[in-house]
């Protein structure tokens, strides 16, 4: 029972990270109609910048700030320099251009930081574990990720549902042409949305640094799962990204933890483990297929 609780927390923690990435991606796709493969690069840039600042200054807060600023600025620069030219083109061109950006940023990071993974040390007050229940220690830092991720989700909800900018974003996601026809400066809105998405991706990168390793190519590893989240949640929907991310995070973790054990009951142990590992990594894609079968537009489609 306590094991299940711990695995659920692990799932939520993965889900929160995916939400930070997925919310930006879904906004960019929903509002701007751009498939941004370079979203993972922004995650990587946030992680690298934070690792660099942390190593130089030793300050957690400066590292956080550095990661956010670097990712946000890079995002806006991408929008301004590259994507602006591509809004009118079809998706294939956008995919090609943003794929090119992945190569560009990966190679840039190799030139700046080398190929060796960088490891970010946690400050003493964040390393170690606390007992969430008697006999169930849980790493403090992972709890912090969950809390901060949920706070960001609440903040985003407020921004989208309760502010004027949010109203424009929602309107943009529902009917882009109408927003433009009403005289809203869509260019500014696009830059803003892209910057916000980049900021969130950078934040996810900053948070991920101390848990995983910071290395070139880390963005692509997580980008695929992020796309699954966006598709499951419904393109353009923040709420969908939230539910999609938690669903993917929990399902992925629980499958990894329990499928081999269940298979062991019916077959030889080593075969069960091998097959279980395979099934668990397929799990989220099967989930995506199932969701698309039942709700072809995702769980919470924005373009109703």
């Amino acid at each position, binding site marked *: 029972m306590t*094991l299940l609780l711990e695995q659920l927390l692990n799932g939520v923690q993965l889900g929160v990270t995916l939400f930070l990435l997925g919310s930006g991606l879904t906004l960019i796709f929903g509002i701007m109609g751009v498939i941004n493969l370079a979203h993972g690069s922004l995650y990587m840039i946030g992680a690298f910048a934070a690792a660099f600042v942390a190593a130089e200054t030793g300050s957690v807060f400066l590292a956080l700030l550095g990661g956010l600023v670097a990712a946000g600025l890079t995002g806006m620069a991408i929008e301004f320099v590259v994507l602006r030219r591509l809004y009118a083109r079809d998706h294939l061109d956008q995919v090609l251009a943003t794929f090119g950006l992945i190569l560009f940023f990966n190679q840039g990071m190799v030139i700046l930081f080398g190929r060796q993974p960088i490891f970010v040390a946690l400050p003493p007050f964040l390393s170690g574990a606390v007992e969430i229940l008697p006999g169930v220690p849980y790493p403090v830092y992972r709890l912090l990720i969950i809390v901060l991720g949920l706070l960001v989700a609440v903040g985003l909800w407020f921004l989208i549902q309760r502010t004027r900018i949010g109203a424009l974003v929602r309107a943009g996601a529902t009917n882009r042409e109408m927003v433009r026809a009403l005289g809203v400066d869509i260019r500014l809105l696009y830059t803003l949305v892209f910057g916000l998405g980049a900021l969130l991706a950078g934040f996810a990168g900053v948070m991920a640094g101390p*848990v995983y390793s910071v290395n070139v190519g880390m963005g692509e590893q997580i980008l695929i799962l992020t796309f699954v989240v966006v598709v499951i949640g419904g393109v353009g929907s923040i709420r969908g990204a939230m539910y999609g991310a938690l669903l993917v995070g929990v399902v992925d973790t629980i499958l990894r*933890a329990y499928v081999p054990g269940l298979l062991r009951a019916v077959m030889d142990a080593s075969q069960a483990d091998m097959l279980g590992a395979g099934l668990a990594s397929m799990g989220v894609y099967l989930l995506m297929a199932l969701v698309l079968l039942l709700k072809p537009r995702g769980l919470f489609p924005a373009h109703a």
Partner: protein
Amino acid sequence: MRHSTSRRAVLAAGLVVAASPLAKPAIAQGAPLRIGVITTLSGPGGYLGADARDALQLAAEMDGGRLGGVPVQFVVEDDALRPAQGKQIAERFLRNERIRLFTGVIFSNVLGAVVPDILDADGIYVSCNAGPSNFAGRECRRNYFVVSWQNDNLHESAGALANIMGYQRVFILAPNYQAGRDALTGFKRLFRGTITNEVYTRLDQTDYAAEMAQIRAARPDAVYHFHPGGLGIAFIRQYAQAGLLGTIPQVLPSPSMDVVTLAAVGDAAEGVDVSSHWNSDFDNAESRRFVEAFRRRYNRTPTYYAQQAYDTALAIGAALRGAGGSVNDTEAFRTAMLRADFPSTRGKFRFGPNQHPIQDWYALKVERVSGQLALVTKRKILENHSDAYAASCRV
């Protein structure tokens, strides 16, 4: 229509030029022998390939740009841990660059894609790291040599070490790919206790939280895991963050705890038991010469990936010398290679019947040496150890 025809014409012209022997400079007399190095230089496993490449180059530099008296040139490309990419590089090296002699591959899944193409094209492959089980037994080949070890060996030695430590119940983990399956098979071959859980992780996994929770729930005597490069660093750091470090000891094969892992993991690594075929503190002349030269040239301590590549370079040198300085006569090269007439950094080294090494295995421990954490060689675990597949190889 005209446009497409002319484009086709240009393409055809390009193909003709590329295919003609004129496009490539003819190999002049005395031009260096080119050796293809396909290795992993990016991603979490990037430093493994970088160490191998640097050691190969060092071995040649120490002999004035020669191996076995033959001037050599390494042509290095990054496979990015993608088998398909490795295969493409091999095809290009074989067809366009006319390279016959290859080494460098770190990961067994890449090796599995690269080696058959090379051997089918009558090339020679000398492995400086990966030694997957599927090429060690019935599928062994005449022009395929492994200087490092057969994969299972690393983990058999860890299993033997776990016996020595007196662990009864061990939780074992490895990534779900060829070398990971070899790892768990190898560990179980010599370990005499019970396995509480056997878990396959993903080769691209970065978060091991689910596995940590399982380990805590299983309460084993010890944890054995095979996670090379960045994977191991992430795993051990998360092991420490989950508070498992003080409660459950680890028995590791050398890929999970090399000097880079050690530096990245820091204090959390102290006291960990490791099994290996070589360590930078080995007390023989060739090992001392290599470690000193590597430190002077690159300003860092070599990992065993570097040591194996260095041995591989020496083995290639010995084979080239015996074969009259060329790779054209593959049988002469093979005969010379199998003599293993080179001073190995391991002290003693010879090839078994399947052209994989027969060597000794040692227990290492992470200890403080004058304030710095270092891997210290403790005792011999296995002597003249061959592998389980040698008997079924007929070459």
